[in-house]
């Protein structure tokens, strides 16, 4: 293991890789600060740029972009109460009031230190947990993998939030359906291609990610113009105030960071529960732990209230890499895009990665750590420059985003059909977004659908066509039972609520 860490470290500190972390953090922060563009878009836009690189360098850039995008989201949360990313909504609760009190610089510094500490602690956990889990998961069979993927997909739907569960399930199934387009992996027959040669290879993941995220997010900015917040943001950046923290403040932050990073990491490991849920959980935990006097501070610029979600969302980001690296199963939309990038470099994430390409495995982990350091060292001083980039008017920005998305996909296949397919997919995505359907479950369903099918077919072949493999091994059965519980949980909750309502209005039945 020590050998692996060193080899990862030597890869990560090569000049080109260090340069990439810096570029990634900068680009990620910039995209994250733009209204409407999230980390999935940021990563997807970077994938084509990294094709020429070797896998480690590409991944290092991605990690930088990922952390940068989250940090950029926090910046706009704190400065103008406009979270660019769902994971930083909780940051605005206390960060924005603090900025309004003229302590914007301090709030940004707290956010940066919390993110850094959360990311660091979680990276250490990852360092320990990932190899251990990877060796356990080597004993998993196809049936178990199938069950795990079912669990991952149901968990995503279950964590989708109130009133969104059915929509998330629908989108997951839609993604699985899209993944069946193309050549049947077992029989080699073309399926659902309508006789078109362009669809024989199926829809590429990059195409789907670009059109449902980058393209549709950019077009939605035009379609549904939100108040252009960038000038406010720039104004806020002009008077940040001091960025120094006092000893007392650091003392307040330390225990919060310790608690929130553990909570965030484990929330991130769970499939489906990502940075967003982690940040809300951590915020809630801190508020419950706080004394009555401190509780009044929450929502009015409490340091604890800002530290907790910022630590937790970064820790969760690292945590979400655990299932990806050890099982090859992404647990969130962002890690799904990361996985798409890995596969495009010819790296298959999963338990065998640790054995077969230890250099890639370790450089991912080390690079996340370096990404955190760079974020702390470079981003704070760089913020004024990033704000200058924000001055780029929207009418110029949107065509560039469209162009980068289109050309990124086109350069892989040189097939103009892909460009037209992207326009179609983006149009469908915009329609679905306007109806409040979440896009990430679809992406996850799409990338897992293919693997699910492979594992299901293999398991069926081993058990000679009988479905008994679903309950023969206890581990398979347990995983499937948990999935069923996840799926039924919202239903049970709704029924109980409905029954309570009926009890409260007894005459309802007679009417």
């Amino acid at each position, binding site marked *: 293991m020590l050998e692996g860490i060193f080899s990862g470290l030597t890869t990560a500190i090569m000049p080109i890789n260090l340069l990439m972390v810096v570029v990634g953090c900068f680009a990620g922060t910039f995209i994250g600060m733009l209204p409407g563009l999230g980390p999935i878009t940021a990563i997807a836009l970077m994938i084509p740029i990294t094709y020429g690189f070797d896998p480690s360098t590409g991944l290092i850039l991605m990690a930088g972009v990922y952390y940068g995008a989250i940090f950029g989201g926090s910046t706009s949360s704190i400065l103008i109460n406009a979270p660019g990313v769902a994971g930083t909504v909780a940051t605005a609760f206390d960060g924005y009031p603090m900025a309004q009190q003229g302590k914007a610089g301090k709030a940004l510094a707290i956010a940066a230190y919390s993110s850094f500490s959360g990311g660091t602690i979680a990276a250490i956990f990852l360092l320990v947990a990932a190899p251990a889990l990877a060796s356990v998961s080597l004993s998993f069979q196809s049936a178990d993998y199938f069950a795990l993927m079912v669990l991952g997909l149901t968990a995503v739907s279950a964590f989708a939030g109130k009133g969104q569960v059915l929509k998330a399930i629908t989108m997951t199934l839609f993604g699985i359906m899209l993944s069946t387009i193309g050549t049947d992996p077992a029989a080699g027959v073309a399926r659902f291609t309508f006789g078109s040669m362009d669809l024989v290879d199926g829809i590429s993941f990059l195409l789907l990610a670009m059109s449902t995220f980058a393209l549709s997010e950019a077009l939605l900015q035009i379609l549904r113009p939100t108040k252009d917040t960038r000038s406010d943001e720039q104004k806020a950046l002009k008077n940040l105030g001091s960025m120094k923290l006092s000893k007392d403040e650091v003392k307040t932050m330390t225990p919060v960071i310790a608690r929130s990073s553990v909570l965030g990491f484990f929330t991130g490991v769970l499939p489906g529960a990502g940075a967003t849920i982690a940040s809300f959980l951590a915020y809630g935990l801190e508020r419950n732990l706080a004394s009555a006097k401190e509780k009044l501070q929450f929502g009015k610029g409490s340091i604890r209230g800002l530290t907790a979600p910022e630590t937790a969302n970064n820790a969760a980001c690292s945590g979400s890499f655990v299932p990806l690296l050890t099982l090859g199963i992404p647990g969130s939309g962002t890690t799904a895009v990361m996985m798409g990038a890995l596969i495009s470099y010819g790296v298959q994430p999963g338990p065998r990665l640790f054995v077969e390409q230890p250099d890639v495995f370790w450089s991912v982990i080390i690079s996340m750590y370096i990404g955190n350091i760079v974020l702390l060292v470079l981003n704070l001083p760089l913020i004024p420059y990033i704000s200058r980039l924000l001055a780029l008017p929207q009418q110029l920005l*949107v065509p560039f985003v*469209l*162009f980068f998305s289109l050309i990124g996909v086109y*350069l892989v296949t040189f097939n*103009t059909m892909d*460009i037209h397919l992207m*326009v179609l997919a983006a149009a469908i995505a915009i329609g679905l977004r306007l109806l409040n359907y979440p896009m990430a479950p679809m992406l996850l369903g799409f990338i897992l659908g293919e693997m699910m099918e492979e594992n299901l077919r293999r398991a069926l072949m081993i058990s000679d066509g009988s479905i008994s493999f679903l309950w023969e091994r206890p581990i398979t059965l347990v995983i499937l039972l948990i999935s069923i519980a996840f799926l039924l949980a919202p239903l049970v909750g709704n029924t109980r609520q409905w029954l309570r309502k009926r009890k409260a209005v007894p005459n309802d039945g007679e009417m």
Partner: protein
Amino acid sequence: MKWKPVIMLAALMIFYGLTIRYLGFLISTTIFLMGGFAVLGERRIKVLIGAAVPVVFVFWFLLSQLMGIYLAPGDIFEMLG
């Protein structure tokens, strides 16, 4: 809801897909970007050209010279001789 510019941008993207083979990367992309800026309300000809042409050339240079991706010149040049 501003559907008009979005539909026009979609049309531009389709146009881009239809012409990139024939006009080649440089010309097609320049038209796409300038068209996109114009659709979104940029009218100053200096900005239109100034924002599109350098980016297209830098991108082309990066791709073909540094990253070694071969971008075929448009078919139209072959037809012209």
